[in-house]
């Protein structure tokens, strides 16, 4: 019985608890963290329950308020949805556990209850974006998530308010373009429900209004998922944010944006609209190839390690869009698998960088010298995350890149496959620089006295409440790699749209 209500529970519980934290935090500051973790745990359990139900019974349709669609708002959960729900709630929970120590250091104590309120609301907004089946409801939840992330990013270090302001401007443009697209679709069909739109639209594909709607929707979603060349807000915003916030948004916001793009292209519009009637997938493919190369080249040029990882995110989004745009089964499987993998990889890397910053205050690559002696477990986690981004087995990154390259070759897009391999090589250059500094650099003492360098550098690991989330993400990377075949056969192969 309660499992029928999971799609509503996954959103309502964090919503109520977030405002409880707001009230309770006025008097006692200690329970805020535990209440937030309680809300996120309930969301995670609901997400796993939804995934179980979808695997066994098929698509879930949940009617909010008991009204039938298209008069009411409907929550539709199919395989793609359910997978992303599990990923987002899991990363939210893990980063939330991590955030206790790091937030106490970075934000003043009076603002901690508000931090947990807005963090819970951000996770709720992203989960709601994933679970809804109504186009306008998606806009409302998109704005909830965006507003929460503007506020959280502005809590960071020196240049954070200006970076967040730029993010406000660009994010609003993206959301307003999405709203315009939905408005045009409403004018020509009179419906806002995604399933209803997909039935009413095929007769209207020749009209200009639908074409303009598609263009507005794609540009709006591209701004939100930081697709090259609309990625300009991302490096500044994610670099200056607090560590826990960067770790969460880096792993999830762009991926949920990519999910919205897949929904627009393949659920609202039929697949043949993007592949045959318009050259949309060709254009997306070329821009994605440019994004992959651009992201990796600019990552080489950075000194600040967080900024370097932000440019890697831009390259990763390029991979996902390229997988969608090649238009065959292998590529799409690779894209969805890459959404899952990238959430874990980016969360792992950003969590490690945050832990190092918490312990030593190091942010540039030069300051990472001989980190292996001081924090061996953290450095090992960074190495596994880096190997996964480069795409080395048995980490999960290898499998998704394998499917992407196979998809590009199957579609005979040799240039895309070449761009993918070149960008993998470039990301290898990017990460091997850092790994060389961490593992193989000779440790020099500050004074240069030879006799004092033989003193053992003490192991000063990050605290356990930060190490355990890092280990969980590393275990996730390795397990996703080992079980990727099973994930594809039980979940992902049902998400591929028909005709591929």
């Amino acid at each position, binding site marked *: 019985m309660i499992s029928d209500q999971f799609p509503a529970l996954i959103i309502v519980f964090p919503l109520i608890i977030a405002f409880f934290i707001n009230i309770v935090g006025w008097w006692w500051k200690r329970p805020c963290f535990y209440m937030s973790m309680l809300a996120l745990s309930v969301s995670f359990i609901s997400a796993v329950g939804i995934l179980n139900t979808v695997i066994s019974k098929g698509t879930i349709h949940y009617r909010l308020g008991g009204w039938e669609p298209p008069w009411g708002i409907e929550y539709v959960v199919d395989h793609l949805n359910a997978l992303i729900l599990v990923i987002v709630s899991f990363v939210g929970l893990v980063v939330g556990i991590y955030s206790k120590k790091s937030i106490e250091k970075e934000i003043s104590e009076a603002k901690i209850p508000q931090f947990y309120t807005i963090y819970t609301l951000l996770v709720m907004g992203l989960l709601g974006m994933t679970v809804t089946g109504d186009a*306008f409801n998606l*806009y*409302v939840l998109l*704005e909830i998530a965006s*507003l929460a992330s*503007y*506020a959280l990013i*502005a809590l960071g270090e*020196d*240049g954070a*308010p*200006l970076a*967040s*302001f730029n993010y*406000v*401007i660009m994010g*609003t*443009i993206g*959301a*307003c373009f999405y*709203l*315009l697209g939905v*408005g045009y679709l*409403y*004018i020509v069909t009179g419906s806002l429900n995604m399933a209803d739109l997909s039935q009413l639209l095929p007769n209207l594909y020749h009209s200009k209004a639908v074409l303009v709607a598609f263009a507005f929707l794609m540009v709006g979603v591209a701004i939100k998922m930081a697709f090259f060349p609309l990625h300009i807000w991302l490096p500044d915003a994610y670099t200056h944010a607090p560590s826990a916030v960067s770790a969460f948004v880096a792993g999830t916001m762009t991926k949920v944006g990519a999910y919205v793009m897949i929904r627009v292209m393949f659920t609202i519009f039929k697949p043949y609209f993007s592949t045959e009637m318009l050259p949309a997938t060709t254009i997306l493919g070329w821009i994605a190839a440019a994004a992959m190369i651009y992201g990796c080249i600019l990552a080489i040029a950075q000194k600040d390690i967080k900024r370097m990882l932000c440019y890697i995110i831009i390259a990763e989004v390029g991979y996902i869009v390229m997988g969608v745009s090649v238009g065959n089964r292998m590529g799409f499987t690779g894209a969805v698998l890459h959404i899952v993998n990238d959430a874990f990889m980016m969360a792992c890397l950003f969590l490690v960088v945050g832990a190092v910053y918490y312990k030593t205050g190091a942010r540039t690559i030069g300051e990472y010298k001989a980190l292996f002696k001081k924090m061996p477990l953290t450095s090992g986690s960074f190495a596994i995350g880096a190997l996964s981004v480069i795409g080395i087995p048995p980490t999960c990154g290898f499998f998704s890149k394998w499917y992407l390259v196979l998809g590009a070759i199957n579609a005979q897009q040799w240039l895309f496959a070449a761009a993918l391999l070149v960008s993998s090589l470039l990301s290898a250059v990017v990460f091997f620089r850092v790994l060389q500094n961490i593992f193989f650099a000779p440790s020099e003492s500050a004074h240069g006295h030879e006799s004092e360098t033989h003193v053992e550098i003490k192991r000063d690991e990050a605290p356990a409440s930060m190490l355990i989330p890092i280990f969980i993400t590393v275990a996730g990377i390795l397990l996703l790699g080992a079980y990727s075949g099973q994930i594809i056969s039980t979940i992902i192969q049902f998400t591929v749209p028909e005709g591929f």
Partner: protein
Amino acid sequence: MEYIIAKYNYWVYIVLMMIGFYAMIGKRNLVKKLLGMNVFQWAIILYYVSIASKKGGATIPIVMGAHGHYEPAQAIQYLNPLPHCLMLTAIVVGVSTTGVALALIIMIHRRYKTLEEDEILESLEAFRK
């Protein structure tokens, strides 16, 4: 000529949207950018409300003589109220975004004592070096 006169609501909203867009990108003062964002959002809301109108003497969607009567309203006499409801939500979203952006502007002004973007970037660069 018919394009301009028959679809004048499209022209109005596009002109307003482009004015707001130019202000967001072309101006350097942060408050002017925020005003541009407001004009941008309000142009879209105006457009949505304008598409709700119907030909044939449709009036505003307030049920005439509602108090004490229980007859169903005839939908053909009234405008389409759904875009109006959707835009209520969009207006509140716009106000919230403006509130967040204004709070950020106050934070920036307290730190850097200026609101011109190029001066703020200069002081950031100087601070980093």
